[in-house]
């Protein structure tokens, strides 16, 4: 075969595609997003995807990135299935094949942890809206930026809350139990709980990791019941949160309080699925729909109209992360990863659409952690219409006006 005959068209074709992508790069900024779109955390993954799409749609309709000649943001999504290996492969693909300017994701800490490592190696900024494992921003990486609070802040506030409740109601808590999913997220929380319980002088009567893909959690609940703790701390994904809450209610596990860690317990389908079984439960979150923030009602109404459910903490973080990216691109005036990294590091984004968050400004410290991220605790109660409601109770200064906290919860 004549080699020239083959090579020449191939070269023409290659040049054609190269010049085409160079042309495309002027008009479009590609952002890679890694999310669990299937598997046990699919529902939060889809919330993140929908919130991103809504934000980017708004940004693009408002004229895109003005400093880049009105360039449009183009979102690429990859399904991590909640699996670390898939997350790593997809990050590689986004950076080396798709040539994205920035990557965001990946919700599951176990996926974010190795995926951010890939981004760091290539020097491409990785924005983490939600993934709470501390160590994600504690490896001296330059390209990893997290918007959400890290898990040591979550556990710290859970224990502060418990101490405040004991003071407010004059009830003494002596024993605690830990029940958590056995992934990075749950075990990360449990490590911190152990230290905090020791410091506060609580006796740990049960320390139980369980697989969140388990088809039955009755064994865990039986054990919990026998250990008879005053307070249970839990970290669960959606499916297992539903199973545990229902089984605990069915088997009449009596405790003074159940303190959960967002995630599955904050999932919109959770309350609808468990109904009254979740009465009096305390959940820690970054964000709640009853927060009094400017523009929240309108954005929530729009979101609900588009997707049929209220905004969640995950969705708001994802939504805000897109406005953060817009702000960064505007300031960097470039899609070069180095310039973007520098722009991210000097972020001070206040108000506007990011004002939907529970705090005012996004600002990163030298580790890439948003230092303003804050947390609130809500109590689950059944409303007049029988629908379950989440009511902000802590810190006391943001407690919903006129609400009386129920602590300890009545026996079953």
């Amino acid at each position, binding site marked *: 075969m004549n080699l020239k005959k083959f090579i020449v068209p191939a070269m023409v074709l290659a040049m054609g595609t190269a010049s085409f992508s160079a042309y495309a790069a002027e008009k479009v900024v590609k952002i890679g997003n890694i999310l669990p779109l299937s598997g046990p955390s699919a529902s939060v993954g889809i919330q993140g995807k929908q919130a991103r799409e809504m934000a980017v749609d708004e940004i693009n309709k408002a004229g895109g990135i003005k400093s880049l000649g009105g360039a449009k943001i183009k979102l690429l999504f990859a399904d991590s299935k909640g699996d670390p290996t898939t997350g790593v492969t997809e990050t590689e693909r986004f950076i080396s094949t798709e040539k994205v300017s920035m990557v965001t994701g990946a919700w599951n800490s176990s996926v974010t942890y190795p995926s951010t490592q890939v981004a760091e190696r290539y020097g491409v900024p990785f924005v983490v809206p939600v993934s709470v494992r501390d160590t994600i921003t504690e490896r001296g990486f330059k390209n990893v930026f997290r918007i959400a609070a890290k898990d040591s802040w979550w556990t710290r506030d859970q224990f502060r809350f418990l101490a405040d409740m004991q003071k407010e109601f004059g009830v003494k808590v002596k024993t605690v139990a830990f029940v958590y999913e056995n992934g990075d997220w749950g075990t990360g929380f449990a490590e911190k709980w152990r230290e905090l319980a020791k410091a506060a002088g609580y006796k740990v009567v049960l320390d139980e990791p369980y697989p969140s893909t388990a088809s039955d959690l009755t064994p865990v609940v039986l*054990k919990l019941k026998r250990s008879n703790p005053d307070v249970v701390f839990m970290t669960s994904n959606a499916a297992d949160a539903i199973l545990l809450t229902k089984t605990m209610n069915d088997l009449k596990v009596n405790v003074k309080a159940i303190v959960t860690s967002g995630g599955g317990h904050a999932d919109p389908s959770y309350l609808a699925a468990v*109904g009254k079984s979740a009465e009096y439960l305390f959940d820690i979150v970054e964000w709640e729909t009853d927060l009094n923030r400017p523009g929240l009602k309108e954005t929530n109404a729009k979101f609900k109209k588009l997707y049929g459910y209220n905004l969640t903490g995950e969705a708001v973080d994802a939504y805000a992360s897109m406005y953060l990216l817009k702000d960064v691109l505007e300031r960097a005036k470039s899609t070069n990863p180095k310039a973007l990294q520098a722009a991210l590091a000097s972020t001070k984004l206040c108000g506007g659409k990011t004002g939907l968050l529970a705090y005012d400004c996004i600002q990163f410290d030298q580790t890439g952690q948003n230092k303003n991220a804050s947390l609130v605790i809500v109590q689950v109660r059944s409303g007049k219409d029988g629908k379950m409601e989440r009511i902000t109770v802590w810190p006391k200064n943001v407690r919903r006006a006129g609400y009386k906290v129920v602590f300890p919860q009545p026996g079953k």
Partner: protein
Amino acid sequence: MIGYIESVINGILMGSIYGLTAVGLTLIFGVMKVVNFAHGSILMVGMFAAYWFITLTGFNPYLALVVVVPLLYFFGYYMQKIIIKPIFEAEKHVREPITVIIVTTGIWYVLDNLALLVFGAEFRVAQTSVTGKMVEVAEMYFPLAKMIGAGITLLLGIYLYWFLKHSRMGKAVRATSLDREAATLMGIKQSRIYNIVFGMGCACCGVAACVLVPFYYVYPTVGVPFDIKAFVIVVLGGLGSVPGAILGGIIIGIIETVGAQFMAATWTEMLIYAFFLVVLFVKPSGLFGLRQDY
């Protein structure tokens, strides 16, 4: 002590339901020598059908059996007839047709993603008259829905056993499973038997789905955790054996529940697979398996 008795009984109850989810798999494998990877998805289809039936009509949840079981029977019957059969024909001289396994995997993906598209990723729980009802015996609590489930499993097991052993159709099914060619020579229409068996396998999923819905949540990939358990159970009990599947399920249930009382729940999975390996070493065909099946 009473806590351990409670655990064992809870293990048996949940285990028999695991067995129930595995019966359909073992039935299809026993006859067609095909591992049906779409099994969990068919269970999911059944659960959604049962969920909507119960939620929309508000009837007693077990009335869903009347609708869901025939529905899944025809679903399986026509899935085999339209999708699987043509591929099976192409490979009919192979004892274990591999391409069919790949097709069932395809069906699994299509069904799961279709459900995700149609119903969304949220978790749904049916509120029924038995949901959350507990039976109290000497300070031990057992969920009523699981007790009914275990009872239904037992009845289904007895019926299938009788059907395969004594009915004319059952004999034809067993003949096909033993020797396809010989059965065909005796005037048994192989393709029809396959359609019926696939339909029955799916109908068993329908029974399992109706049993699960009153106390379990429904979502598009709900079949996956049951699927993995079902594979272990059918191999443990012996591929193709109905009593083996139910007993295998009960054993897994007991290990899971009792094991968790002595160690963290994370480790019971390891215990299940360790036991599984031991059985494979000692009796490779499983507890009730036939010699020729390994």
